[in-house]
């Protein structure tokens, strides 16, 4: 929910309460005013009636009662008759409902005869009063709502514009991606403060990122040289004829470990570079051709492992991606399909317009399939496998917004990439 919608909702709720309370207050105040007017009129009428009766006597009684507003009855007993002003309902046969009246009841003597006199005055129907007030209140209320919505639209369009443009800019921000900046200036202090803070934050993130990247790269390269020294020294030692076989084997193991460490280092560096989007330039890659070239190079390994290769390669599949990444991607996938294959197994490659599927026979997976793309996940206990190949594949696919899936149906492992 938008901030404005939310605040507006609260305003509306508050306004609703105010309008309800206000409506009732309005109703009672107006009703009160009306009663007061009527009561005043009734008392005035009482005075005139008494004056008329006192001067004119009984001949006026008929005349007065003729209007229907005044009723005059002769009484014997004064007690038991309610006096004063009160509300009363009188049935109106025309409208078939009670009509509200205000009644002034009093007793006066005419020629020493007591008469009970009632004066009635119709009160404006309270129902129609309520209707009128409700109508007025709802008109004001809807004006307020509609106006609020319009105002909201205007505000979010104009006043919040810098905010949304900043939001748009930082939404897809990645330190590895392009540098962002140049936020639109705003005369609203909160927004300009936000801009300042974000700009400083981005600059810091960018700076830290570059430092970290350089550090990692440098560290990774610097490690290679000492490793080269270890490897060269051990290789020199292997040439020594005065050493016994046992010692030589230990030296050999040092040499192998140094090799592994260096490969690991290189693979991690590669993964980091891909993650950091350091392979930017993309071009149209002829996947079919690249695949054929790769297969040709691996042909010997496939033959030596007695693997049966079947392939359906669409000749006109082009994807836009970095050529180095395409090379790494296919190499890793094909190498995996051979490395993890069994002697006399099968590889099936299927390249279509929108997907590449590589199926190969192999031993059962010892780890959970969803973990396969994780780092340092090894299928075998083999020391040779570094366990980064598929993470690199995944990262390349992520960078290019390809979908990569692993499917296992005993004994076929399938990696499918959807472009």
């Amino acid at each position: 929910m938008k901030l404005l919608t939310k605040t507006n909702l609260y305003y509306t709720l508050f306004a609703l309460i105010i309008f309800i309370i206000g409506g009732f207050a309005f109703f009672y105040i107006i009703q009160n005013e009306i009663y007061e007017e009527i009561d005043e009129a009734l008392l005035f009428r009482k005075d005139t009636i008494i004056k008329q009766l006192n001067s004119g006597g009984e001949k006026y009684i008929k005349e007065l009662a003729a209007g229907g507003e005044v009723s005059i009855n002769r009484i014997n007993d004064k007690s038991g008759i309610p006096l004063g002003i009160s509300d009363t309902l009188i049935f109106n046969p025309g409208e078939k409902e009670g009509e509200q009246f205000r009644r002034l009841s009093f007793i006066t003597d005419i020629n020493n005869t007591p008469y009970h006199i009632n004066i009635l005055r119709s009160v404006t129907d309270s129902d129609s009063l309520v209707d009128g007030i409700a109508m007025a209140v709802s008109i004001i209320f809807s004006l307020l709502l509609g106006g609020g919505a319009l105002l909201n639209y205007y505000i979010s369009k104009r006043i919040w514009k810098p905010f949304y443009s900043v939001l748009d800019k930082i939404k897809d921000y990645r330190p590895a991606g392009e540098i962002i900046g140049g936020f639109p200036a705003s005369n609203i202090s909160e927004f300009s403060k936000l801009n300042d803070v974000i700009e400083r934050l981005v600059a810091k993130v960018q700076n830290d990122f570059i430092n970290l990247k350089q550090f990692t790269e440098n560290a990774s390269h610097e490690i290679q040289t000492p490793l080269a020294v270890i490897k060269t020294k051990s290789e020199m030692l292997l040439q020594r004829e005065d050493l016994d076989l046992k010692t030589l084997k230990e030296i050999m193991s040092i040499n192998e470990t140094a090799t592994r460490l260096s490969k690991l280092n290189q693979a991690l560096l590669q993964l980091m570079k891909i993650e950091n989007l350091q392979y930017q330039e993309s071009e149209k890659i002829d996947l079919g051709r690249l695949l054929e070239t790769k297969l040709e190079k691996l042909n010997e390994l496939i033959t030596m492992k007695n693997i049966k290769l079947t392939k359906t390669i669409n000749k006109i599949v082009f994807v836009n991606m970095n050529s180095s990444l395409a090379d790494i991607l296919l190499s890793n996938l094909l190498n995996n399909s051979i490395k993890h294959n069994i002697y006399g197994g099968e590889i099936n490659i299927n390249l279509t317009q929108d997907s590449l599927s590589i199926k190969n026979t192999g031993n059962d997976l010892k780890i959970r399939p969803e973990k396969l793309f994780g780092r340092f996940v090894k299928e075998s206990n083999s020391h040779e496998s570094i366990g980064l190949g598929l993470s690199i594949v995944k990262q390349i696919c992520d960078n290019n917004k390809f979908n990569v899936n692993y499917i296992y149906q005993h004994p076929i492992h399938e990696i499918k990439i959807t472009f």
Partner: protein
Amino acid sequence: MKLLLVEDEKELASDISKYLIEEGYLIESASTYNEGREKLSLYDYDCVIIDITLPGGNGLDLIRMIKEKLLNTGIIIISAKNSLDDRIMGLETGSDDYLTKPFYLSELNARIKSILRRRNFSGNKEIIIDEIKMTLNDSQILIYDKPLSLTKKEYELLLFFAANINRVITKESIAEHLWGDSIDTTDSFDFIYTHIKNLRKKILDLGGKDHIQTIYGMGYKFIIL
């Protein structure tokens, strides 16, 4: 043959020198950019082995300097950087080969020999080891003048051995030489075994000697009997 090694890591430089001296080369070493520059301006070398990142300057500038002198000098870059861009940049300046650290000395040795052979236009490109005579222009091998037919990999393997005679060559270095990174080493050992078995058999069948010694668990050694 006179070589120049420009490498700032002393230990590495001394081992490379030792290995190459044993191969019969004359080696001079430089450990900084300026030292390398000085040596290159004073003397001519058959092959130069250069590290890119040097104290005082960039190895690529040294390569440009060699190219300006228009000498028929072989150039091998040895660098810790192994990205494609670095390789392309290195080769574009005119170097003959690019070797990523860490590397096997046997590999470096084989590559130096290959470059020297390619650079040596006048001489006949022949390698003669005992009864084996390899003519490299047409990839022909004769054993006691009888032609030996080898597969591509067997040929590469024999050439690798020929470059590293009397050296212990590990299985890993053979695997890397023949297939690069694209192989699981456990697999490769079987393949290497097969290749060596076939190579040995083919040489023996033509009456050749058993040059390839197996050093159990480690690798092989090509010896002159």
